[in-house]
């Protein structure tokens, strides 16, 4: 397989420099852009496998870059943003970004996010969804509708199952509250975020050893949930 291509849209030269060093070292071909406009040109001409977009660009809103990119491309997008700007992250994710990282971040975290995004490939591509997932002592088989914890089958209610299946479909990536509500309860339930709190608690109680210190079903405050895969 050829080296995967990354386009980094980030205005800070120092951050671009360390990203280039880290990603090149990991076998990526890196192309850089310092503005949203250049980023869109790079993304169009380099045929990237993944795009990393900083939300605080000087020329356009990072969210705008995502929306424009999504008009013609399903390439995985990871956004970089500061902590404390959860609404911006949610907006970027709802605009079509696949995942986010809060600055400052370690390269390890970034590489993990990129691996997940690359594995999922194009968003919404049904072939990219793996139907089985094994993480720690949790085994999920969507094809056979079976969930095992430490080898023992766990019974889930239909809603609990749908919720878990949605998280499995996006395994490793953050899924926003709105996205989960829409996929599990339908478009009319987008504001009923307390449904999620109640059913996530049910799921954790059945799947986690200690629901208050979860290993698999993680909460990203203000953003959504993430099913850990590694």
């Amino acid at each position: 397989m050829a080296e995967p291509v990354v386009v980094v849209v980030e205005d800070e030269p120092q951050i671009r420099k360390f990203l280039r060093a880290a990603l090149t070292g990991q076998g990526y071909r890196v192309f850089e852009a310092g503005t949203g406009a250049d980023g869109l040109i790079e993304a169009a001409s380099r045929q990237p496998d993944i795009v990393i977009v900083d939300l605080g660009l000087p020329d356009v809103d990072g969210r705008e870059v995502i929306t424009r990119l999504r008009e013609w491309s399903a390439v995985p997008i990871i956004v970089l943003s500061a902590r404390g700007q959860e609404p911006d992250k949610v907006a970027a994710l709802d605009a079509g970004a696949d995942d986010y990282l809060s600055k400052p971040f370690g390269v390890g975290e970034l590489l993990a996010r990129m691996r997940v995004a690359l594995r999922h490939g194009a968003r919404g591509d049904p072939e990219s969804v793996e139907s089985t997932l094994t993480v720690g002592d949790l085994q999920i088989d969507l094809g056979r509708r079976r969930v095992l914890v430490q080898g023992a089958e766990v019974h889930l209610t239909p809603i609990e199952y749908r919720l878990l299946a949605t998280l499995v479909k996006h395994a490793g990536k953050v899924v926003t509250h709105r996205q989960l509500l829409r996929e599990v309860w339908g478009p009319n339930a987008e504001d009923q975020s307390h449904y999620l709190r109640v059913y996530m608690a049910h799921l954790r109680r059945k799947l986690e050893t200690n629901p208050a210190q979860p290993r698999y079903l993680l909460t990203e405050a203000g953003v959504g949930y993430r099913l850990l895969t590694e």
Partner: protein
Amino acid sequence: MSIDWPSYGWAIALVALATGAAWLMFPFFELADLIMMYLLGIVVVAMRHGRGPSLLASVLSVAALDVFFVPPFFTFAVSDARHLFTFAVMLVVGFVISNLTVRIQAQAAAARSREARTAALYAMSRELTSTRGVHELLTIALRHVSEVFKSQVVVLLPGADRGLSAWSGGQFQLDANELGVARWVYEHRQPAGLGTATLPGASALYLPLIAPRGPVGALGVRPGDRHSLDAPDQLHQLETFANQTALAIERARLADEASDAKIRMETERLRNSLLSSVSHDLRTPLATITGAVSTILENGSRLDDRTRQELLESVRDEGERLNRLVQNLLEMTRLESGALQLRKEWHSLEEVIGAALSRVGKRLANRRVTTRVPPSLPLVPMDDVLVEQVLVNILENALKYTPPGSPIEIIATATDRAATVEVADRGPGLPHGEEDKVFEKFYRGRADGERGAGLGLAICQGVVRAHGGRIWAQNLPGGGVAFLFTLPITDAQPTVDG
């Protein structure tokens, strides 16, 4: 002016009475004594019925004396010309008596009303002295002036952009013209409006409120009867009230300014303390990072791998520490500037505790963290991002001030009205009596390792209070300290379909 007919009736009746008495005395007394009888009647009429009736009584008395007691009797004719002189003198004396009596009466009445005004002024001054705040003062002044002068009253104070803002408690409506008169009064420091030479067409009389440092506003008085303020002493009296009000307003202003100055000083002190704290706390990790990295750059391959690894790890750790400091500074600034917006939703404490633990992450690796969160715990309305920050700050505080390897326990409980979260450690505890001080800004305990900015727990307090909750710390009997905070549950739990 209407004529008081009954008083004139009384004047006639009293002259008749005096005539009756004189008739009885006539056989035994001189004419001069009879005249005394009449003068007595005039005095009584003057005292009780005022000037008009007493003048009538004087004239009638002379006539009655002439008709009944001066020969030839029962005619106005006079036989002895000397009697004409007597009549003239009697008439003059009668007029003088009635005038004097009436004037004394009027002076007594004026003295009474002055006394009442003085008492009213005294009452107002006393109330004003024991009151703070401009608006409270104005309410009192309005009430008193309105009662004493039977008027609608408005006070106009200079507001923003050089306009006057009216303060009347709703009883006094000002149109643009009236406001113009008030502004003229304020600017020229002279009374104007109703009853004055300046702009007399106005519906109210306006007086400037002048305090020692200059004009503080204007007072508008619209009497129930348009003429009731015409008397000079009324105007004078009103000016006294206006002066008292002006003094009180200035006093309140001065008090406000003094307290503002105190707040500014306090803010300045905090800012200085923040600056020195921040510059120290930011420089320490920066010094470590710069030192470590330049060591690696300049020594190159002479460093062994282990040293190089250690230096790089300290660069990473100090970077993370800087990040936490900056995060806390931002959070504090947001709290203090009032820019913090709570995004409250129904959340599960279990979830928020889990999120906080995973965010502190690796640094808790060598700790035994126990969580006791009952499954029956209700959802709690909160801003999850901020409450997660509260937990993270308390946990980081525990990491900082308790020995490595010591356990941490997190317990959540709830009643119908509030949820409580407790984070307990097994460290050295807080110095006795400092349980409340730890929440003050820039308070720092004695830590062996990392020093913070002393903001973490202050932020916790800000966030918890913004939620309407309470946060406190208590030393535990077996050693260690527990940080507790409550979050109120005000509404009924939301319903869940499915």
